[in-house]
Structure formats: structure tokens, C-alpha cells
């Protein structure tokens, strides 16, 4: 395989196009995004309004209003126009936090903005998931995807910088954030020139707690570890979807504008830590203020 820069030999400007020239070129390319075809039922990302509405009216509606009784604060911190990167804590077996944040934006935001959720690309290898997740607004967390959504299409994207480490942590470690990756999300926001909106979710940890993980399945399949959740094993594989009715509180914090070049690793790392610290502090504050896990 030829190294990354080889095709540059074909362009007259040579390898220089990689740094400053690229952003200028992208600015021009925004005008050339494909137009909408009203007859289509899916977007170019594979998102289906029909499936989304169906899930929204049934499962999401029930969970949001009745089961988790979501309470939302600071929705005004989500910009009404333009792209923004939402960054949230992540927890629980089959985490319910992403659909609840998306629902909160649809219900409470004056513009009822729709949300794209960046998920690990591994989902594309699983039959069923690979079909369903794009239909309800999930995209693979690839830097190029974030750039196109945030910058070119000016959309909202939710990302969980803890990644797989978030849902993997056990109940005893609840509300203690894992490492925020290598700060890829800050670099993405910088490249796309959009604000970062930190989001704190309280309740997801208790809704789908994981008490332990069994290594048996991992030994068999190489990747999955069997979570021990409250209604396991008597509900079988369905147990991960049986959420406990914990009270959800979602708080959108003030947007963070980072001033640095995307390539400046030091600044990116500092900003990453800053965002993480703000989310962590707010989480502790919210958990400290709550009287009951179930009633809030």
C-alpha cells in the first residue's frame, strides 16, 4: 500500500495541500453538497424519518415521559443553528442515555433539532444492528464523518468520549468518568470550527447497572463480556434491555469554544481535560443534590 501522501504527486500544488489549503478547499465544497430528493425516504447517511418516528412514538416516548421521567436543564445552551458537538458521560449495559438526550432535544429545544449519535464503527459488523442504527440517526465515529456532519451539514452530533470504557464500568464505579480518549472529539470540533456542549446525564447508571462481568463469553467470542445485570439470568438476553425506572436528569452545560489549531496536541489535551473536569464536577453536584435514585 502506498503511503498517505503519494497521490499528492498528481495535484499541481503537491503535498502542501494537506494543511492550510485543505480547509479553504472544503469551504468551497460545501456548496456542492448533494441536493435533497423529496421522494426519498432515507438520507445519504441511511437515516430514515419513518423508522425514527416509529421508535420515537413508541419506545422513546414511553421511556422519556413515564419510565425515566426525564428532567432537562440548560437546553438553551444547545445552539439553534449551526453545528455543535455534544459530549456526554456514558453508562449502563445497552446505554439508554443517547436516545434520551436525542428525545430531550426533540421535545424541549425550540427548534426541535435532530441529533446524530457517533457510535463505535464495530456496530457495522453486527447483523441487525448494522441495519437499524443508521436508520435512527447513528453514524460511525470516524473523523471524516464528524467533519462532514458538523462543518458541511451543520448538524448536531453527540459523542461519548469515554467510548466502550463507559458502559463497561461496574456499578461500584458509577459517575466516575473514564479517560476521555485521546481528545479526538476536541480535534474534531476544532477542525469543524464548532462549539463543544458538555452534557451530564444522571440516572443511566442506575437504570441499567452492571454488577459484574463474566469472562466466559469473552473466551468464546473474543469480544463480548457477559454483563451481570439485575434481572439476569432469569430474563435471558432480554435482561440488558430491562431498564430499572431510575429518575433521569439531563443538563446541557455552557458551550466551550477552544482556541487552538487541531494539530496542537498539547492544547487539545488541555481542552479535553477541561471538558472532562466540567462534566465530572457537574455530575458530582447533580448526584449530591438528588434525594432519591428513583424519585429524583
Amino acid at each position, binding site marked *: *500500500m502506498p503511503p498517505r501522501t503519494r497521490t499528492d504527486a498528481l*495535484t499541481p500544488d503537491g503535498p502542501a495541500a494537506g494543511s492550510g489549503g485543505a480547509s479553504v478547499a472544503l469551504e468551497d465544497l460545501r456548496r456542492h453538497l448533494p441536493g435533497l430528493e423529496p421522494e426519498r425516504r432515507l438520507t445519504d447517511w441511511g437515516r430514515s424519518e419513518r423508522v425514527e418516528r416509529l421508535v420515537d412514538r413508541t419506545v422513546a416516548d414511553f421511556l422519556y415521559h413515564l419510565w425515566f421521567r426525564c428532567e432537562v436543564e440548560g437546553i438553551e445552551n444547545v445552539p439553534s443553528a449551526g453545528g455543535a458537538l455534544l459530549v456526554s458521560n456514558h453508562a449502563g449495559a445497552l446505554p439508554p442515555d443517547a436516545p434520551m438526550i436525542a428525545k430531550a432535544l426533540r421535545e424541549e429545544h425550540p427548534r426541535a433539532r435532530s441529533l446524530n449519535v457517533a457510535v463505535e464503527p464495530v456496530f457495522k459488523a453486527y447483523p441487525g444492528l448494522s441495519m437499524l442504527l443508521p436508520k435512527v440517526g447513528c453514524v460511525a465515529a*470516524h473523523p471524516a464523518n464528524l467533519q462532514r456532519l458538523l462543518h458541511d451539514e451543520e448538524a448536531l452530533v453527540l459523542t461519548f468520549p469515554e467510548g466502550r470504557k463507559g458502559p463497561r464500568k461496574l456499578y461500584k464505579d458509577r459517575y466516575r468518568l473514564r479517560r476521555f480518549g485521546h481528545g479526538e472529539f476536541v480535534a474534531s470540533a476544532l477542525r469543524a470550527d464548532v462549539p463543544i456542549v458538555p452534557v451530564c446525564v444522571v440516572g443511566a447508571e442506575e437504570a441499567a447497572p452492571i454488577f459484574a462481568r463474566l469472562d466466559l463469553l469473552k473466551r468464546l467470542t473474543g469480544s463480548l463480556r457477559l454483563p451481570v445485570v439485575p434481572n439476569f439470568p432469569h430474563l435471558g438476553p432480554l435482561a440488558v434491555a430491562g431498564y430499572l425506572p431510575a429518575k433521569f436528569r439531563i443538563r446541557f452545560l455552557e458551550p466551550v469554544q477552544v482556541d487552538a489549531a487541531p494539530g496542537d496536541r498539547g492544547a487539545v489535551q488541555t481542552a479535553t481535560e477541561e471538558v472532562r473536569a466540567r462534566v465530572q464536577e457537574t455530575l458530582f453536584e447533580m448526584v449530591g443534590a438528588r434525594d432519591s435514585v428513583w424519585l429524583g
Partner: protein
Amino acid sequence: MGSKRVLVTGLSSYWGGRLAEALEASEEIETIIGVDSQDPTRELERTEFVRVGTQHSLLRRIVEAAEIDTVVDTRLIVDSVVASAGRTHENNVIGTMNILAACGGPDSSVRRLVFKSSAHYYGSSQDDPAFFTEDMERPHPPRTPLEKDIVEAEAAVVDFAEKNPEVSVSMLRFANVLGPDLLTSHRALFELPAVPIILGFDPRYQFVHEDDVVAALAHVLHADLPGVFNVAADGVLALTEVIDLLGKRFAPVLPPWGTGLAAAALRRLGVELSPEMLEQLRFGRGLDNRRLKATGFVYRCTTREAVIALGEHMRLAPIMRGAAEPYRYEREVEEFLRRSPHVRTHPRRRERANGDATVLAPAALAEEPDTSPAGAAAPVAGYDDLEAEEIAPLLDSLEPEGLTALRGHERSRRARPEVLRAIDKALARGGGG
């Protein structure tokens, strides 16, 4: 500097033929020379065909003798069903290297190279971005022989560009092509009574219409655009959406695990699923086509429109089968048509003129019937009332232009086959007098 003297490699492939046809229509191109090891498959008017493989010494002689300034390489095999792995490698890698060797060097007259590549360069895997841009590499090294060959061929072209900075090199990566004239393995898949898909997967697909492929090659050639360009129509469709638009049903018969085994079983039944296609059926692929659009290229079809066009054609195909006789290359005939002093009108030029007349006739008739040379409204007084037998004797008195106009008139009105045949006969005699 515009291209004037063009060499098209792979003239007998569908793309070579279509491109030569498109180039013939453009005035500023003086010379078109096509090379291939097989007979051309399309009727061409002024393209010179030379039967030669990819031996670089022979090609070099042609390039030098004809002072070729532009080489368009359309030979690449992008469907591993159409040829064996060995032949594909020979054609895609060795052939490309030979052609590059024939174009390069300090004393070469070649100033432009257009290389037709494929989006298989990017592959199809779970770690792909939703839209590949031209600067991206595939996330994993290629696994199938065809993809390896394409990556290797592109590397050779990049190498050539580095060593010959005075040559402007364009590389076009095409998405899967759809179109009525073109038989691809995807087309074969869509023609099955039920389209087999992998259970639990609904991959994203992006196509490009065959006419847009030819237009993109010609656009890059005329506009002199060095660099890499993705060529794919607007819009990325889910496979189920594609099948729906074609009016077909899908059958999730391929299991998510052990897909290769199931594909081997299907191969026994005559359904060819190439390894690249299996990957695409699982993960799909999307391309960012904005770089080419930014150069002023306008796609005639979106992916959706290309799919709909194919669907219409597929419904019509059983009725239209055998209507048009396929073109056969006869060396003597082609030589005669190009060189003989007795040839006045080339059959293809005449056909084109007639075609235009058919299209233009109604407008011309409505607006200014008197100005057209042979009086297009009724080339012969009271013509529309005449019976077929009465027309035949009158034809000999007309000049070729008159006959052409008459033919257009007849086609736009009653289109009686016996009359059209008689006119054609008269035209073949060189027209009347």
C-alpha cells in the same frame, strides 16, 4: 494546452468505445487512435483502430509516429467476474505499467494522461468513513486479488506522475456503474427474480450512470484537470431502497456468518457473487463527489435516477430483445469507409444527421417551414398523401440533403418501414441524380 491527438487504450471495451464516440463529436480533437487486442465493439467514424495489445515497444512507436499528446487508459477490469484473476492481473497491473512505459520518458510527446480507476481502490469495510474523499486511503490493506491489482495499478500511475512532472495526470475513481447498455455483476444480481442480500445488513450504495462516466472522462480530458477525482452520482441509497426502486423483491438468503460458503453454493446455481460484491453487500460504500463537481462537472443523473432508468430498461428488455443488430467490426469495410475516395457520407454521420432531424423536425416545421433547404414541411408537394409505392420512384430525383430531410420527415410522421428502407437505399446509391 488542449488535447488534440488522443490515444484511447482499451478501445474495444465498452468505455473505450463510448469515449471514442464522444471524442469524435468534438471538433478540436484532430486525431483519435484506439488500440486494443480485440475488435472494436462500437461503430466509429474517424477513430483509427490499431490491433495491438499492451506491448510497450509497439505502443511507443504508435505514440511517437502519431505525436500523441493525450493518452486515455480505459482498460482497467473492475469486475472480478468477467475475467480470471490471472488475466485481470495481467491486464490491470502489467498492462498499466506497459502503457505508462510507452508514454513516459524525456522525449515523449505525451502531455496528458487520463487513467480510469475504480472505487474498489477504497474497498469496503466496517472502518470506512461514510463518504470517501480523494485524499483518503483504505483503512485496511486490500484482500481480494482485484483490489490489490487496482491499488497496485494506481501506485504505478502515481509513480509515473512523480517521474514525469511535465505530464498532467488525472485519475478517476468510479463508483459502481449502472446503465442500460452495461452488464455488470450488480446488474446481474438485480436481474434475479429476488435479489439475495445478507441477513441483517442494509448497505449504502452509490452508483453512477454510464453516460456520466463517459461525460466525466471527456470533461477531465477537455478541461485538463490533474489530480484524483471520485466519480459517483449524488445520493447514497440503501440497498433495500435500490431494490424497491427497481420494482424487485429482496431475499435475505445470505447468512451473516459463513457468507462465503453460501456464495459458493449460489455460484453452483449460476449466481456469481464476487468477493468485492460480498463486501459491498455487507458494508456498502459512499464517495464524496464534490471535488469533481467543483470543477464544473454536472451529473445528468442522481443515483436514484440511474436506478430508476435501469429499472425501466429492465422491464423493457424482454420486449426489445433482438431489435437492434449488434455491430460487427469488418476491417475491409472500415478501411473502405475511411480511405476510399468514393465515400461521400459516412453512415454514422448520416445517421446522426437523421437523428437530429427527427428531434428538430417538429420545431422546424412549426416555426419556419420555408427556410429549410429541401422544404421540410413537405419535401415533395402533397407528400403526406402519397402511398409507399408512389414514393419510391420519386426518390431518385432528390439530392442527398433532400433525402435526409425527407427521411426525418417520414420518421417524425408516419415512419412507414418500407418508405424508410427505400430512402436508405437511395441514400446508399449516393442520392438521386
